Structures are given as C-alpha cells and as structure tokens.
C-alpha cells in the first residue's frame, strides 16, 4: 500500500511544526555564546529593545521562571556560566523573524572568558568511568582473562579506530510554535520524535503539570535521534510566548541546530583480539573514549555490540567519558551500535587478515550459542544466514582476499563485509480503537518522522481488525492521544504495534465499537531473552589510484529483523540507513574548532552527506524470521540496523582495494593519497 499521508506530503498540505498558523504569532531568535567557557557578566539589551518590532529580550539578566527540576540544556538563561560555544545565552522576541534576527545581533553580552578544553584524547586526565551508558547499560563488563587469551593466541590484533563528531541533519530543521491559552494551558507544535515524552519534558522544564501541556507533531521531517528529546527551542518558544503574551515561533537555522540539538560523540576505540589456529576467539576487548558536555552526562554505549556478537572465553568492554567545554552529544541513528560496530567489524576484518581466514568464516566460527556477556538465549539470531545469503548474492566465493591487486583502468577495486546488530526492544504504550463513520479510527501518540509509521500502523490495525486498510484511519502525533513512547531505538513499530494490535483485539472481542490497550503489563512480563536484529553488509568500492577518491559501486544489506510489516517502507528504512552509513564511511565529519570552541563547519555545504550520485547500486533484502516471543507482530524494528555495519563494510572494502587500512573516519581522498 502507498503511504497514507503521501498525497498530503507531495501536495504540500502536510504541515510541519514551523508551518502551523497561529493568530498574532511573534518570532524568537536566539543569541549564542561566542565563548566555549566563560562567565556572563552582563547582557545589555537596550539597543535591541529599541529596534523595530522588538517585544522582549530574554536572558540571564532576568532569568525566566522554570521548574525546580529543570536541568542541562533546557535550563535556559538560569545560570551565568557558559558551557560551550553556541549555547543559547539570550533571545529576542519580535513581530517578524527578520526583526528578531536583526535585533539578536544588537544584544550585547559581556563575558569573562576562561581557557577552554574541547579536544577529546584517549589520554585525557579527565576521563572517568560513567555509572552507566546510554540508556542503562553498565559502563564496563569483564569475564575471563583477556591478557591470558591474547598471550595464547595464534594471531592477534591491537588496533585503534577513531570516529569524528557527526550531526543528524534531519531535512526539517527543529522548530517550535508555542501558545498559551487564557487559563494557562500550553500547546506546542514541536518537531519531535515523541509527543508524549516531549510533553513531559517541556512540562517538567516549565514546572507545570503535564496535563496542562499538549504537543502536536503530525508530520516530522526526520530526526535520527536529534528530536528524541525536547531541545532548547521547545522551552524557549514556551517561555517567550509567556513573556510576550502571544504565540511564539522558534525556527532554528541549520547552523543553530549544530550547536543545540545534539550530535554523535567522537570516539577513540581500541580493540584487542586474538584467535587460536582454528580461528576461535580466545579474547576480545573493546575500550572506548568519548566526550560529553559539562552540562549533561551523555555516555554513548559504543562498546556494547561486543557483548552481543561473538563467542569468546575472555571478553572485556569499557567506556570512559570526559566532560569538555563542548555542546551536549545525544542520540544519532544507532547510538552505540553504529560507531562501535564500525570498530568491532573493522577489527574482525583485520583479525581475519592476521589469521589468514576468510572474514565470513571467521564470524561464522565464532557464532555464539547464547548472548556472550549475559549468557541469555537469543529469541532468534540469524547472523550466519544473513552472511551466507549475502555471500551468495554478492558473489563472495569468487573473491581473492589479497589486497590491492584488482585494477580497472585508474580504479583499484575491492570488496568488504561486515556484520550488523541492533537490539529489538519495546516500551509500554497505549492505544485506542473505535468504530467511526463506517470505518475504524485508531489513536496513539506515536510519531511518523518520515519512516511511514502511520502506514505501518494502519496495516497492523487492519490485520488485527480483519478489515481493509482503506477503512482504517490512524491518528498520531499528538500528546492528547493515548500515551506512546518515542520513535527511536528501532522500537516504535514494536511498541506501538503491540498496543494497536491489543486495542483492536479488545474492540473485536468486546462490544465491537471501542477498544483500548495498555501494554505495560505485557511488556513487563516478556520472557528474559536476548532480542536483537542482525544483518550483513557487503560493499564493493573503487578507489582512484591517483586521487584517492572512493566510490561505492555496489552495496548489499541482508537483514534478519523479525517479521517485515511493509516491504516498501522496510526497503526505504534499510537503504536509508545504509546510505547514511556510506556518508559516515566517506564524508561526514564535523570539525571541532580548537581555537574558538564550537564547530567549524555547520551547514550542508560544508558537512557533506551522500547525494544521489554517490549511490550507484544499493540493495536491501531480508530473510524470513519467525520470532513469536518478541511481540504480537513478531517484528524487530528496522530503523537503525541499516546504518550499523555499513561503514565497516566500506572500510574493509577500501583495504581490500588498496591494501591501506584507514582507521580514522571518514575515509577521505586526503587519507588515501
């Protein structure tokens, strides 16, 4: 079936947050810190207030009243300390966007700057072990004796990889339109991945009861994690609207987004591993250094894939974090698994070379019977099937493993493989179903961030109702609808679909008119199993021998992700993730400005993501997987597994093409020439 909102989108009738009309709306434009570490000594708004159309200037001169529990990035203008360059330190509200922007430049913020520290390094004295890593994994795990395993091994590797700062760059910039009613109720049209959670965060930041806040986000133009939590723009719009007694719109620019809407932490990852003569792992260790801001502890779970992937008697994983004078990192598509699997799967390729083994056979040899760290059984695990099916489709058997020997004209040709994994989780959700106008309406505060969630839930509801999808209408994107978790962690469909299925079943079993479900109990009662999706990525690259340019001639992903709800939507998710992984492998990099703090490049002209010309042949297929212990649909979630593994597959192919192992992403011509 086609996307149910497709017609609205292509005809421009689908409204995004900044487009919602609001009577008498005013515009708010932020002022950002020009220092990475400083104390604000004063904010002089007099010149700005005298400019045309200016209604108010907000700053720490007169801190807006916020909730007692407000912390971190949402505690707008509550403190005089500047935590990073680009932090919001003031904001101008005016009758037009242009007037607000012009006046923002006239706000004079005085600082006492202090020396800053914005550079992540693996010997930084401030590195520490966080209590947990995102979302609630232990920072470290250890079993067996890694040193002894390495000492016994027939082949070992000890390699360090780095990944740079990367930004989510959803197509729709973050925007919020806030309006207060006469009796103190707040409505925010917010570009968010989860209306319920966004409502709760905004309410907490403002110190108002959540039932007095409503968040609406019917259409969202991408998020990739950056819209998974409320951002300063959401709270700023609400505070500014309260200050001027009018609706207020905050529409961040792309450059502002680079500073205040999160990014993927840079990582420095050391992997040590050893195998015996038969290729069996004797030890595996993955240590990660990464950064967060001084405002918020966000510790990405980068080393967690090693706890899932391969059987080994000795396994150690460790995360170390340093708090720098930098913006706060956050979720970006497959946080943890994505950068972590780049290192782990590159290391497996290096280990295969060191041991003289085929990289697929090395992985198959080390396939575990149970989840390596926890010992829990897998609900289903079909990594080997993905590798085998991918090898068949890709023509892997004809591959000569020798690096740097295939040439077509000026191009060096190589192929690479990597495994991918992503957890299959779900969270409690509610949903309702009712008969209305001869059809059905299903309500849930889910989010469609461009994934096609509305369409997938329509199919799931139609299945459960035994109805034609054409008579089922799904309402989502509104916190007044039944509570739902956010679109993130590849658990939207699993979480929402469970609630939708149960609500529809409740309708069918009950009076045939109305149904409701809350999956809290069902989710809590789920069997203790290791639940993960798996996949295998294959890449063929060509590298210009004279210039170091890398082009991807072929990309294949084979996935085992439970039941696929909608083939068209699934393919889009997989190839979208793989395309983003190609960007990570070859071009995506935000440069930290060591002199001034903040970032040097902060727009789409200077931060490159792949364009159509970069994607030549890309194919995503999946193997049938029947996993009825997960959730009523048997679905594992597909939003993130496509990106995981891609960068390693490309990097491994570049090595095969050139004989050069680039361990610092992105793999640019400068590093290959």
């Amino acid at each position: 079936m086609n996307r149910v909102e497709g017609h609205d989108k292509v005809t421009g009738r689908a409204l995004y947050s900044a487009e919602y009309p609001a009577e008498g709306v005013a515009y708010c434009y932020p002022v950002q810190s020009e220092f990475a570490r400083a104390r604000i000594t004063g904010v002089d708004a007099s010149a700005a207030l005298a400019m045309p159309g200016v209604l108010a200037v907000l700053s720490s001169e007169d801190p807006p009243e916020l909730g007692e529990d407000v912390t971190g990035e949402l505690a707008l203008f509550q403190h005089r300390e500047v935590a990073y360059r680009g932090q919001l330190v003031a904001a101008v509200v005016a009758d037009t966007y242009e007037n607000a922007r012009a006046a923002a430049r006239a706000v004079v913020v005085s600082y006492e700057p202090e020396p800053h520290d914005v550079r992540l390094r693996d010997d930084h004295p401030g590195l520490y072990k966080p209590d947990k890593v995102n979302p609630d994994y232990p920072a470290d795990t250890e079993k067996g004796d890694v040193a002894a395993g390495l000492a016994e091994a027939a082949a070992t590797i000890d390699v360090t990889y780095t990944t740079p700062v990367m930004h989510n760059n959803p197509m729709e910039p973050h925007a919020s339109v806030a309006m207060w009613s006469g009796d103190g109720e707040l409505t925010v049209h917010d570009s968010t991945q989860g209306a319920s959670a966004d409502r709760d965060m905004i309410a907490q930041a403002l110190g108002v009861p959540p039932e007095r806040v409503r968040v609406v986000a019917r259409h969202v133009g991408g998020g990739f994690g950056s819209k998974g939590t409320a951002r300063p723009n959401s709270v700023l719009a609400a505070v500014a609207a309260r200050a001027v007694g009018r609706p207020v719109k905050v529409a961040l620019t792309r450059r502002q987004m680079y500073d205040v809407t999160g990014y993927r932490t840079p990582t420095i990852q050391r992997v040590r591993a050893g195998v015996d003569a038969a290729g069996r792992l004797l030890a595996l260790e993955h240590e990660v250094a990464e950064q967060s801001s001084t405002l918020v502890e966000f510790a990405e779970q980068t080393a967690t894939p090693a706890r899932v992937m391969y059987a080994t008697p000795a396994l150690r994983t460790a995360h170390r974090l340093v708090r720098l004078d930098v913006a706060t990192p956050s979720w970006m598509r497959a946080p943890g698994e994505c950068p972590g699997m780049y290192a782990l799967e590159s290391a497996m390729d290096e280990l295969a070379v060191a041991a003289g083994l085929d990289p697929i056979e090395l992985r198959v040899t080390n396939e575990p019977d149970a989840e390596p760290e926890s010992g829990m059984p897998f609900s289903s695990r079909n990594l080997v099937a993905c590798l085998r099916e991918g090898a068949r489709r890709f023509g892997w058997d004809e591959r000569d493993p020798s690096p740097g020997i295939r040439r077509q004209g000026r191009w060096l040709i190589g192929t690479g493989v990597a495994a991918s994994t992503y957890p299959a989780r779900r969270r409690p959700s509610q949903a309702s179903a009712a008969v209305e106008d001869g059809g059905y309406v299903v309500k849930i505060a889910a989010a469609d961030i461009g994934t096609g969630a509305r369409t997938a839930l329509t199919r799931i509801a139609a299945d459960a109702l035994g109805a034609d999808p054409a008579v089922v209408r799904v309402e989502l994107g509104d916190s007044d609808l039944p509570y739902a978790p956010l679109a993130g962690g590849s658990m939207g469909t699993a979480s929402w679909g469970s609630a939708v299925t149960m609500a529809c079943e409740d309708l069918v079993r009950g009076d045939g008119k109305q149904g409701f479900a809350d999956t809290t109990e069902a989710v809590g009662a789920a069997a203790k199993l290791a639940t993960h999706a798996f996949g295998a990525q294959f890449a063929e690259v060509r590298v210009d021998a004279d210039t170091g340019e890398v082009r991807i001639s072929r990309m294949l992903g084979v996935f085992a992700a439970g039941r696929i709800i909608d083939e068209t939507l699934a393919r889009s998710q997989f190839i979208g993730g793989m395309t983003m992984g190609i960007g990570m492998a070859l071009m995506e990099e935000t440069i930290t400005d060591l002199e001034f703090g903040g970032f040097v490049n902060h727009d789409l002209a200077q931060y490159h993501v792949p364009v159509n010309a970069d994607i030549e042949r890309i194919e995503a297929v999946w193997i049938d997987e029947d996993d009825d212990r997960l959730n009523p649909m048997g679905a594992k979630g597909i939003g993130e597994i496509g990106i995981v593994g891609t960068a390693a597959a490309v990097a491994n192919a570049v090595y095969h093409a050139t004989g050069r192992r680039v361990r610092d992403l992105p793999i640019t011509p400068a590093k290959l020439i």
Partner: protein
Amino acid sequence: MKAFEYARAADQAEAVAMFRPGVMYLGGGTNLVDLMRLGVARPDTLVDVSRLPLDGIEPDGGGLRIGAAVRNSDLAAHPLVRERYPMLARAVLEGASGQVRNMATVGGNLLQRTRCAYFQDVSKPCNKRLPGSGCPAIEGDHAGLAVLGHSHACVATHPSDMAVALAALDARVHVTGPGGERVVPMPGLHRLPGDEPERDTVLEPGELITAVVLPAPPPGASRYRKVRERASFAFALVSIAAVLDVDADGTVADCRVALGGVAHAPWRAYHAEQALRGSRAGEDAFAAAAEAEMERARPLPRNAYKVPMARNLIVRTLLELAP
C-alpha cells in the same frame, strides 16, 4: 540580515550609474544572498543585473562571446560551447547542482567568494571579511584551502570550476564601470591575497562584468577533471583544466594547464607548461612538468595531500590527452 533596497537596472549604463558605496550588483544570487543571510555581505542596495540584455552567446571571430548574465546551465548546454569548448562545458557541469546552475550567471560565477568556513562565520576573525582581524584558518581548519600563492594574511581558495577552464582558455573579461570600459585577461582577473585578501579581483568599485570573450579554441585535446570526496555538489579538493597539442613526432607543440582548489585564484601552471613545451610527450615529461609546478607549493599541515593529488592529476590528465 540587514535591510536593503532592491533596484533593477534597465541597461548596463544605468547599472553603473546607480553604483555608489554600499551598492552590490546581483546576478543569480546563489552566493550573494547566502552571504547576506549570514551577515557576511551587508549591502545597502542590490542592483539586479541578471535581467540586463547580456544573456547571449555569439560567435566572435574564431571565438565566442558569452554575456555576463548567461545562466550556467545555458552556457554548459550551448551547442557552440559543447562543440568547440567541451572542457568549459564540463567544468560548468562539475560545479554546484542543476538547481544552482539554473540560477547562477557567468559574471556571478567569476565573482563568487571563497567558501572558507571562517570567512562565512561572522563570529570569528577573518582578514578577508574584516581586514586586520587575523586568519584562524592557518592554525585551524584549512584542509580545503590553498597550497599555492597564499599569504600570511589569507589561505582561501577560489571556488569556481568555470573560472579554471576560462583561465586555461585565455578568456578575456569585458568590464564596464565608472571609469569606462576595459578588458581584463584570464588569468589576471583574480588576485592572490597578499596583504589585501579583502580584494578577490582586480575590479575597481562599481565595475561590472558584461561579457567573457573566448579566443578561438586552442589546438589539441582538452579535459576538465575535478577531484572531490562526494560524487556531486562539492567544491574541488583539486581540479584541472588541461589542453595538450602534440606534434606528429611526439613533441609537445603547446599546452595549457590550470588548477582549481589550490589557490586564491584559478592557478595557471605556467611552470608546468614551460617545462612541457618542446618536450617529448610521455609520462617522464609530464611528471617533470607536474613537479616544476608543484615544487612551488607551500602546503599547511592539513592540506599537504593537495600537493601529490595535484601532481598525480596533472600527470594523469596529460597522459589521457596524449595521442
């Protein structure tokens, strides 16, 4: 963004008459409007010259006269350009995207500003934007910036692909202004930064490009090749426009080599050309020519890769052009 007036000139004389300090001419706006949004360009008045009757492409003796208001897309698609100056058509098509080329004009393309990140960020110093404020790129992020002809004040590069081809073709830029009409040769329009990086070109205030005139196509085979990490819609790390004419006996009769992405101006590789002329066409001579040019490079720590990249590109392109 500062408030500004918008005016449209009926002809080039009126455009020039409307000039005063604070006026900027507006072509396709693909660079200037961005810079205004960023606060880098702050004109009082825009005089729109995109609709002046300067949008023709006509034979000019054995050459071609290209109006300054010709859109990049139209230039690249023109039959005479494709037939007689395929290198120029290719260079234009390697620049920007289809949407941008539909808007961008020939005159505006020549006068576009550097994409150095510090130049585009008004919260940071930049000698080109704010003379005397300093050049943070020298110690900071200069991976995409100049290796040839830069100064202690500025390491910016000129971003145009088209200008590199024009420099190789010995184009002549026709200019009108308060002081009358004149012709500026390519190369020669764009300056090296020296102590005045705020001046991109030799044009005087109020001067307006009216046309680019190409002499007859040089004999020999030609090619434009652009190196970039993304397959499209990216500025050149290094690019080359090259023409090679080899006699029947294998001697290089004539050649043109211009490089993009390496300097504040399209870089005509005269030293390479001099080394090539009269030499025996082949890898040894091409490598010697590339070395003669690139030994002059003064790379910074993070753009040293451009030197071997340019050297390889010169050799490879000449090999491809050799009979």
